[in-house]
C-alpha cells in the first residue's frame, strides 16, 4: 500500500516535473521560433545555443522586485496567479501520456488517474482557470486589467461550450469518456481526426481561445490593454500567469493528441496497442510528447503569423458559428453512427 502510494507520488512528481520542463522549454521554443520566423537570432546567450535561457528567465523572475500596488485587493491579487496555474497542472492527472511501462514485473499505467469520466474532469478543472483571470482582473482594481478580466471570462466561458460540444462526437464514436479508452480505440482503429475533422477543427480553434493565444489573445492584448489582466503583476506572480498559460497550452495540446491523434499510439505494430515491453512503453511516451510538441509549435506558429480578432467578432464566431456547427456535427455523427450500427 505504502509502496503503491510512493509509486504514485513518484509518478505525479515525474509528470509534473516533465510538464513544467516542457512548459519552460515551450517558452524557449516560442522565443526561438518567433525569432527565426522574424529573421532574428533569438536567445543564444545563456548556455550553449541559449538552452539555459528558461533557467535565466526563472531566476530573473525570482529576483525581480515583487511590486504589490497599494490599490489592489491583496488577498485575491496574490491568489489569482496560483488559481491560474494550478488547473493546468491538475488536468494532466487524467491525460494518458503512455500506455504501460512494464518495469520488473510491475506494470505502471501511462496515466496518473485512469478516470472513467476523464474528459469531464478536465473540463471541470480547466474551467476553474477562468477564475484566476477574473480574479486577477478584478483584484488589480485597475481599468485595463478589469477590461481584460471581463473579456477573458466571457471568452473562456463561451468557448468552453464550443470545446465541450465539439468533442461529443469523439466520445460517441469511441464509446467511452475514459481518455485511455479513447486512445486505445484510436490505436485499434484509426485516428479520430480522420473521422471527425470538423470536431477537431472546432476543438483546435476553441483551444486557442481557451488558452488566450493569438488570434484570441484579447484578454492580454498588449497593444490595446497593455497586458490585460496581468498589467499590475510583476516578478514571480507574473511568471505564474505565464506558466499557467503555457501549462494550459500543454494540456490542450495533450488533449488534442489524445482525442484526435491517437495519443501515445502510432498506426503500426507494435505501437498500436498498449505496451507489453518496457521499450515500447518508453517509445510511446516519446511519441506522445512528440505529438504534443507539434501542437505546441502550432500554437506558436499561428501566434506569430496572424492578427487578432476583435472582441465582438470573437464572440460572434463562437456563438453564431461554432456552437451551431458543433450541434450539427453531433447530429450528423449520431445519424452516421446509427446508420453504421445498423
Amino acid at each position, binding site marked *: 500500500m505504502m509502496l503503491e502510494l510512493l509509486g504514485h507520488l513518484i509518478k505525479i512528481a515525474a509528470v509534473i516535473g516533465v510538464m513544467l520542463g516542457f512548459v519552460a522549454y515551450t517558452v524557449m521554443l516560442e522565443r526561438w*521560433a518567433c525569432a*527565426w*520566423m*522574424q*529573421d*532574428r*537570432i533569438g536567445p*543564444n546567450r545563456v548556455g550553449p545555443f541559449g538552452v539555459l535561457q528558461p533557467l535565466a528567465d526563472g531566476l530573473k523572475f525570482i529576483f525581480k522586485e515583487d511590486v504589490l500596488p497599494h490599490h489592489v485587493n491583496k488577498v485575491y491579487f496574490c491568489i489569482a496567479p496560483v488559481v491560474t496555474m494550478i488547473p493546468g497542472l491538475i488536468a494532466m492527472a487524467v491525460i494518458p501520456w503512455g500506455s504501460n511501462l512494464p518495469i520488473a514485473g510491475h506494470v505502471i499505467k501511462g496515466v496518473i488517474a485512469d478516470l472513467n469520466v476523464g474528459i469531464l474532469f478536465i473540463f471541470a478543472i480547466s474551467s476553474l482557470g477562468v477564475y484566476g483571470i477574473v480574479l486577477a482582473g478584478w483584484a488589480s482594481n485597475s481599468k485595463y486589467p478589469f477590461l481584460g478580466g471581463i473579456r477573458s471570462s466571457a471568452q473562456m466561458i463561451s468557448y468552453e461550450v464550443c470545446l465541450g460540444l465539439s468533442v461529443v462526437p469523439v466520445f460517441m464514436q469511441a464509446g467511452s469518456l475514459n481518455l485511455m479508452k479513447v486512445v486505445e480505440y484510436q490505436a485499434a482503429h484509426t485516428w479520430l481526426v480522420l473521422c471527425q475533422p470538423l470536431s477537431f477543427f472546432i476543438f483546435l480553434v476553441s483551444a486557442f481561445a481557451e488558452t488566450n493565444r493569438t488570434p484570441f489573445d484579447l484578454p492580454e492584448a498588449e497593444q490595446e490593454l497593455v497586458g490585460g489582466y496581468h498589467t499590475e503583476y510583476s516578478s514571480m506572480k507574473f511568471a505564474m500567469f505565464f506558466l499557467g498559460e503555457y501549462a494550459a497550452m500543454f494540456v490542450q495540446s495533450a488533449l488534442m493528441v489524445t482525442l484526435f491523434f491517437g495519443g501515445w499510439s502510432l498506426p503500426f505494430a507494435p505501437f498500436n496497442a498498449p505496451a507489453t515491453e518496457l521499450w515500447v512503453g518508453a517509445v510511446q511516451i516519446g511519441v506522445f510528447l512528440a505529438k504534443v510538441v507539434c501542437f505546441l509549435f502550432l500554437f506558436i*506558429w*499561428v501566434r*506569430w*503569423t*496572424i492578427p487578432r480578432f476583435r472582441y465582438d467578432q470573437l464572440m460572434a464566431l463562437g456563438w453564431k458559428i461554432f456552437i451551431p456547427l458543433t450541434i450539427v456535427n453531433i447530429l450528423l455523427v449520431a445519424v452516421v453512427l446509427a446508420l453504421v450500427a445498423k
Partner: protein
Amino acid sequence: MQVQRPKLTFWERTYIPQILKGMWITIRHLPMKKFTRMYPEEKPKLLGDYRGAPTLVKDPEGRVKCVSCQLCEFVCPPKAIRITPGFRADQAFDSNVEKEPKEFEIDMLRCIYCGYCEEVCPEEAIFLKNDFAITGYKREELRFNKQKLLELGGVQPDSIWKWKYKGAPPPGTPIGPVRDGKPVEKKAAGH
C-alpha cells in the same frame, strides 16, 4: 488610380486559406539567414563617412590643429562644445599660429552627431570618427576634455600646411618682398 479593395472568395471567407498561406510564409523564414547580429562581438560595418563621436586631431608634426576659432562652438546646435581659448606658447615651433585652445570640452551627452563642427572647422581640426557607442557611468565621464579628444582623434595627414610658411619674421628682418620665408633681393635702382 484607385486601389483595389480585396474581394474574398468563399474559401477565403472561412479564414483558413489565408491563415495557411500566412503560415507558409512565416515557416519559410525559419531557416533563412538571420538579419540581426550578435552585437558587441559582431560590430556593424559602418558605411559611408559615418558620423560618430567628434574628436580633435594633430598634424604629423604633433601640432594641435585646432586654433580655437570657436566656429564649432558657435554652430553646434545643442551647444555641446565649450572652448576656452588661449595663447600658444611663444617659444613653440608653431608659435605663428598664436592661438590654441586652453581647454576644449565636448559634452557627449549633448552631442547629436550632426557633424556641423566638422563641416565648419576652417582648420580641419575636428573630425567625426567611427565611435558610435560612447558610454560612461557618470556625467563627468562623458564630458570629453581636450586631452581625451586628442587621444581619440590621433594624427591626421595634412596636405596644405596652412601655418607653416607664415607668420612674423624674426625681429630685425627688413620689411620687403618675401618668398618662401626669405626676403627677396631688391634690384638696384636703375639711376
